């Protein structure tokens, strides 16, 4: 297995060395020429395309870094203006030129085509010594030496069969070294790229502040809307019922001696009102903070929720303890909304919910066998869920190809406290 990954690393290094070199040189030339030609006018047309191609290339490398070596390189780019027409084009160019990330990208291209190339070519080059050594030992040394050639195999001077055999052995040793060091060298190349492609500290803070501002606004909006809803529900529901009850009881007081039969009817009505008020309050409480969540935590709350659904919902829970209450609540309402969507819109016949906690992340995965086509950007319910999760740095991801199946993942970073003894 290790050998296979190492061989993979050799092949990937070769790809990076060759393709990386070609595209880095090409893109660097294009970008620099375009920028240089901006005063001449031509550059204005070509520079945005060239610079965007550079970004694409850099993003491709970020992807490789993550997939091949687990090196995560954050994306530093500011969003570009999206206006159409010539004006939009110029706006984009200005934004690109002003963004420090653009210049860092160009710097990276220079380093990538030199140091990056050297790092990447090393493992495949060492590896290729082996076949060459074998070929020499098989007799190819003869024509070379006979033609008066002066062949050096690394530090070995090839003069006859003995030195050619030695070359084969040495080549094998080189190949082993190449294969063994390939993963580390590949990683080193990506780490080097990260040094240059990584957003500056300032930019990272800027992004964080922007994200916090957005999520704070969402959180404030959300809680204000919730309070309005609760106020309205109480006003139109329980409060009105209590008023009706009070009136009935007042009339009963007046009637109890004159007309006991009617008083009795009114008492029954008052009791019915109080039951209604309780039902409404219960529904309201469930919408604010479901009682099972308070009593049992997220796992059982989702199980209870599943039992309320009109179709079979399989729930698997693997939580070592309880997450902080606000996180539990956000995750619960997220799952609740996703389940409601699956029932209402997806026409699903079976839904699975998987709740677990790993690597400091609470994760809920909901899959259904419905017709798919759900989109977090379109459905207001899912969008609301995403916004609410944002306040906890949580994310919602939807994968729902037309025809299904739909897979919705909710992730919230949090610690899980082990349950108290007893």
């Amino acid at each position, binding site marked *: 297995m290790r050998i296979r990954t190492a061989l993979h690393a050799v092949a990937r290094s070769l790809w990076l060395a060759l393709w990386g070199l070609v595209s880095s040189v090409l893109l660097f030339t294009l970008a620099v020429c375009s920028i240089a030609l901006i005063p001449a006018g031509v550059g204005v047309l070509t520079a945005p395309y060239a610079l965007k191609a550079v970004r694409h290339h850099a993003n491709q490398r970020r992807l490789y870094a993550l997939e091949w070596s687990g090196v995560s390189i954050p994306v530093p780019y500011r969003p570009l203006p999206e206006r159409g027409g010539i004006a939009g084009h110029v706006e984009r160019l200005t934004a690109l030129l002003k963004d420090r990330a653009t210049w860092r990208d160009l710097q990276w291209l220079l380093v990538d085509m030199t140091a990056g190339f050297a790092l990447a070519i090393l493992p495949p080059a060492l590896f290729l010594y082996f076949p060459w050594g074998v070929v020499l030992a098989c007799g190819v040394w003869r024509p070379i030496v006979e033609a008066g050639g002066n062949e050096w195999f690394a530090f070995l001077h090839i003069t006859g069969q003995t030195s050619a055999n030695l070359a084969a052995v040495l080549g094998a040793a080189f190949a082993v070294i190449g294969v063994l060091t390939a993963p580390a060298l590949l990683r080193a190349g990506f780490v080097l790229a990260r040094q240059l492609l990584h957003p500056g500290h300032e930019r990272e803070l800027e992004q964080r502040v922007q994200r916090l501002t957005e999520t704070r606004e969402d959180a404030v909006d959300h809680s204000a809307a919730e309070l309005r809803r609760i106020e309205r529900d109480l006003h139109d529901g329980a409060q009105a019922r209590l008023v009706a009850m009070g009136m009935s009881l007042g009339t009963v007081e007046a009637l109890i001696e004159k007309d006991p039969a009617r008083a009795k009817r009114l008492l029954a009505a008052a*009791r019915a009102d109080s039951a209604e008020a*309780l039902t409404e309050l219960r529904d309201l409480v469930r919408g604010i903070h479901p009682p099972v969540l308070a009593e*049992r935590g997220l796992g059982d709350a989702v199980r209870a929720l599943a039992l*309320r659904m009109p179709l079979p919902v399989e729930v698997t829970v693997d939580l070592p303890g309880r997450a902080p209450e606000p996180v539990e609540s956000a995750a619960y309402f997220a799952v609740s909304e996703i389940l409601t969507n699956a029932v209402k819109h997806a026409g699903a016949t079976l839904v699975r919910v998987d709740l677990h906690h790993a690597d400091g992340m609470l994760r809920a995965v909901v899959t259904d066998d419905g017709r798919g086509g759900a989109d977090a950007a379109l459905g207001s319910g899912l969008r609301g869920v995403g916004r609410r999760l944002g306040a906890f740095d949580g994310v919602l991801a939807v994968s729902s190809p037309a025809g299904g199946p739909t897979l919705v993942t909710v992730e919230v970073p949090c610690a899980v406290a082990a349950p108290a003894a007893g």
Partner: protein
Amino acid sequence: MRVVLAEDLFLLRDGLVRLLEAYDFDVVAAVGSGPELAGALAELKPDVAVVDVRLPPSFTDEGLQCALAARRATPGLPVLVLSQHVEQLYAQELLADGSGGVGYLLKDRVFDAEQFVDAVRRVAGGGTAMDPQVIAQLLARRTRDAPMARLTPREREVIELMAEGRSNAAIADRLVVTERAVAKHTSNIFAKLGLAPSDDDNRRVLAVLAYLDRG
């Protein structure tokens, strides 16, 4: 009949004690917390326990946990659980041992004293008393079920009342029909659902509940 009562809100506890005493129950202990309840159940061995799900000190499902633990220690110990909300999940846990003598009702049901006292008696006698809301949830999940779809509207009414834990006589009374008619409906229901007939009221109720809860 000796009753242990656990309810943390003083007003409600007081009201329940008075209600039960008015119907000639002997309330041997009225407690307000989980540990007290556990002690009273172990020590007094009542004929029936009336327990609120949420109790101090943890204000989680302490009452329910105490009741379940007591039933594990004394199988079949009659327990009627009261709550501000009903959850099928809790109903499943109460019914899991299949031995009967359990009740699970919304606190609102106390408003109707007659019915409530009837439920307490039923549970004390080894029967069940499930809240209509639990049954409604169970039935809502079975709407696509083929055998359930074959029931007539009248039979659905009967199965609802039966699942709540009522006897044939009580169902007849409620639907204003003869007991003979109810008996006919119940045997039809059992035939349509493929359940083994049984003369024992309690066992019949448990079979229906188990059927509804399946799948």
